[in-house]
């Protein structure tokens, strides 16, 4: 690995490396990723072979036929047969490449006889996983804390590649994966599964995987989808079918619902605590943990006139989003409790609750009931 020597040297003087440095595509853990890897390496070596011949001839000519060595140019500039030969040989090599590629592609296209179907929906900027047969559905958000993004805390091993709720799937089962999007085009990509599928709003495309090895596999959104494109990772946890069945049982028992009819009153402390956590997961990526936003695209919440006024308008904005901006509707993403907590938090944090400065309504609480009414 001569290539890696300067890199290793450089790494001595840079930040410590947490993960092993990779220079090639991983072999992966599905039949498709194996096929892809094999194709990739075959083509790579064919290219290397052609490269050796072409570059060899070029280097030879450049060394041998220098004017400084007293070479005088010969006069030949045409040869039809040789032109035909060096058009036909590459053509034959290409046919040799196309045959295995076609076979693999046809195999990839076959999503029949699946044991499990998962629907994946891209949102700006999180993924939603739905197990259609099991009735499980949840969102998966970036779990890297903001202070690591801002270099205020040391970055952990899986910086930007960690989520709060991974996609859990069984090993040795054929999983049919349906991919779509709620807003703009995203792309669901996990290298080790050999899957990259664009999430197109309004259309569903499918692919499949059969994971042969339990483990945790990480990926990222691969299609530019707006400002936080780099912050919507994918984590797939492959467990044995037994563990998977166990997991399904747990999920269906403690099912997340949006409690649209439950009437509950929470204390300010409860609301603020829950609100801060939910805010950091759902809101902080644009509006920033300090509530300063990124104007003009993402307005500051600190000192915002709507948030310090009578509760009402901000509830509507959080529930339904704001047309023409990146602000999306959280109606179907979060429960009444979480929404009430987030709104209470943003009404009280960063000095927004200062009645002297911000007026009489500053710091008023919002309860789940208010959200239920506004829905």
């Amino acid at each position, binding site marked *: 690995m001569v290539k890696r020597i300067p890199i290793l040297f450089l790494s001595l003087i840079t*930040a410590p490396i947490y993960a092993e440095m990779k220079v090639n595509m991983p072999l992966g853990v599905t039949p498709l990723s194996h096929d892809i890897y094999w194709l990739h390496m075959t083509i790579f070596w064919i290219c290397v072979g052609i490269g050796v011949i072409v570059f060899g001839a070029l280097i030879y000519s450049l060394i041998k036929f220098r004017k400084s060595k007293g070479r005088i*140019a010969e006069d030949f500039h045409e040869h039809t047969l040789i032109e035909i030969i060096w058009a036909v040989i590459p053509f034959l090599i*290409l046919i040799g490449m196309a045959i295995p590629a076609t076979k693999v592609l046809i195999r990839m296209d076959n999503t029949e006889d699946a044991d499990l179907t998962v629907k994946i929906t891209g949102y700006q900027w999180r993924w939603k996983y739905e197990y259609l047969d099991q009735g499980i559905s949840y969102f998966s958000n970036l779990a890297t804390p903001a202070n690591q993004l801002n270099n205020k805390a040391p970055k952990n091993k899986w910086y930007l590649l960690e989520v709060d709720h991974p996609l859990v799937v069984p090993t040795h089962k054929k999983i049919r994966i349906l991919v779509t999007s709620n807003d*703009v085009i995203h792309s669901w990509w996990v290298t080790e599964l050999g899957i990259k599928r664009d999430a197109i709003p309004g259309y569903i495309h499918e692919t499949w995987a059969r994971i042969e090895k339990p483990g945790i596999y990480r990926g990222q*959104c691969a299609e530019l989808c707006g*400002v936080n494109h780099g912050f919507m990772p994918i984590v797939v946890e492959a467990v044995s079918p037994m563990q998977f069945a166990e997991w399904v049982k747990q999920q269906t028992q403690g099912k997340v619902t949006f409690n649209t009819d439950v009437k509950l009153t929470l204390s300010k402390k409860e609301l603020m605590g829950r609100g801060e956590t939910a805010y950091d997961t759902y809101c902080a990526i644009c509006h920033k943990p300090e509530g300063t936003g990124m104007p003009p695209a993402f307005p500051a919440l600190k000192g915002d006139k709507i948030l310090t006024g009578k509760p009402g308008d901000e509830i509507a904005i959080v529930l339904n989003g704001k047309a023409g901006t990146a602000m999306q509707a959280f109606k179907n993403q979060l429960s009444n409790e979480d929404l009430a907590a987030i709104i209470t938090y943003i009404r009280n944090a960063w000095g927004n609750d200062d009645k002297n400065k911000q007026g009489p309504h500053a710091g008023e609480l919002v309860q789940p009931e208010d959200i239920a009414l506004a829905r």
Partner: protein
Amino acid sequence: MNSIEHAVDQHAPYNSQGFFSKVTRWIFTTNHKDIGTLYLWLSLIMFFVGGAMALLIRAELFQPGARIISPEIFNQMTTFHGLIMVFGVIMPAMVGLANWQIPMMIGAPDMALPRLNNWSFWILPFAFALLVSTLFMSGPAPNFGWTFYAPLSTTYGPKSTDFMIFSIHLLGLSSILGAINIIATIFNLRAPGMTFMKMPIFVWSWLITAFLLLAVMPVLAGVVTMMLADRHFGTSFFNAAGGGDPILFQHVFWFFGHPEVYILIMPAFGVMSEVIPTFSRKKIFGYKFMIYAISVIAFLSLLVWAHHMFTSGIPLVSELFFMYATMLIAVPTGVKIFNWVATIYKGSVTFETPMLFAIAFLFLFTLGGFSGLMLSIVPADYQYQDTYFVVAHFHYVLIPGSVYAIMAAIYYWLPKWTGHRYNERLGQWHFWLTVISTNLTFFPMHFLGLAGMPRRIPDYALQFADFNMIATIGAFIFGFSQLLFLINIVRTVRGKGPHVSNQVWEGAHGLEWTLPSPPPYHTFSSPPTIDECK
């Protein structure tokens, strides 16, 4: 340019006394040499603008974590870097070369449509002003990448997107008018005896490029107009909720976009076919096959657009068709590379700066071709698509391909245009710094892409840190090395450096070398006689 002093022809020498007449000379000029100069300066300025944006991007990616620019600005920079490098640097540079060279190479007095020529150029500064003005507006500037995929650029696009749309309309208009002019010139103004099969390959490559421009620029105008209608007039071309399809955008965009990359590279092929024979002191090998190869590439380039969309869920049959068609392009491209190597073979080679860039082109463009071939294999493309592997691929074909060719062309023809030899030592320094830093910047990107780093992300996982750091160091060396290029050009244009003969290069052939250096303001007012041509 001091071509004015040499101008002996009718209505030639502008009375360039006083500031006003100096300015109006450039605004009202219809002279192909003046307009070529304008195009080339515009391109050089935009090269530094787009390059500064690239350096901002690389500076942000020097280490993981939020560093210099916010993700929002990052996205704007990737968008502008792409748009400016494609439309503001490579295309104007190639048109500038065409303006200077085509009339001199075919023995024409000027371009066929000189006033149109003036207009094609002067649209550009306004188009770019419109585009760049969005960076200074209160809302976000276009931030969806140079490919501006719907619906990110339609339903979700910032208000300033409309400025970009009109700017692209103007750029397209300029390109179409330029292409018409080039075709008209080559068809009508060849000197007697300059038959098609005697034309220099540079002229041939531009003729074919001009037809490609005519074929696809209206399609680009169409797609941005559809965007405009979706944004403001209630249509739903790209919106599934209204019966449209976001994938339609990609089809239409890439129907323009793929031929576009060949528009950027084919004049480069032309330049190589002039430079390599000159410094090998040998005729181009397989002249006819070189022309056939360009024609076949141009034709195939219209049939491969969907290879940019393999992961978007297009049907199996389409994937197979586009895979085979894409692979086929390797055949004529290979023929070209083999012919250039055969030209060098048994030649008498010297290594002046233009030749050095041409040799680097042969090595590194071929490398970019290999990664292109790998990308054509659909299953493997599922892994490569939208990663740094793609970034590495297209920078290898665009920088060692188009940009090196432009640099080679400048070093090659600048002595002819100015009458002075550029500084060879400075040129060699520029070459070596450029070629080393190109590889330092872009080679590690192959590894990053294969290991799983998506493109267009402002921050990345820790496993990608080292290669990103190397790439950033390389990018800064590349960027600052280009100042040597600028210095060399300015020196030469201002008359520093020894005078050159008509011939300039020992091995050069073609009509432009029969003219004085610098050529008079008007050349070939009466057609030359063609005795010996390639």
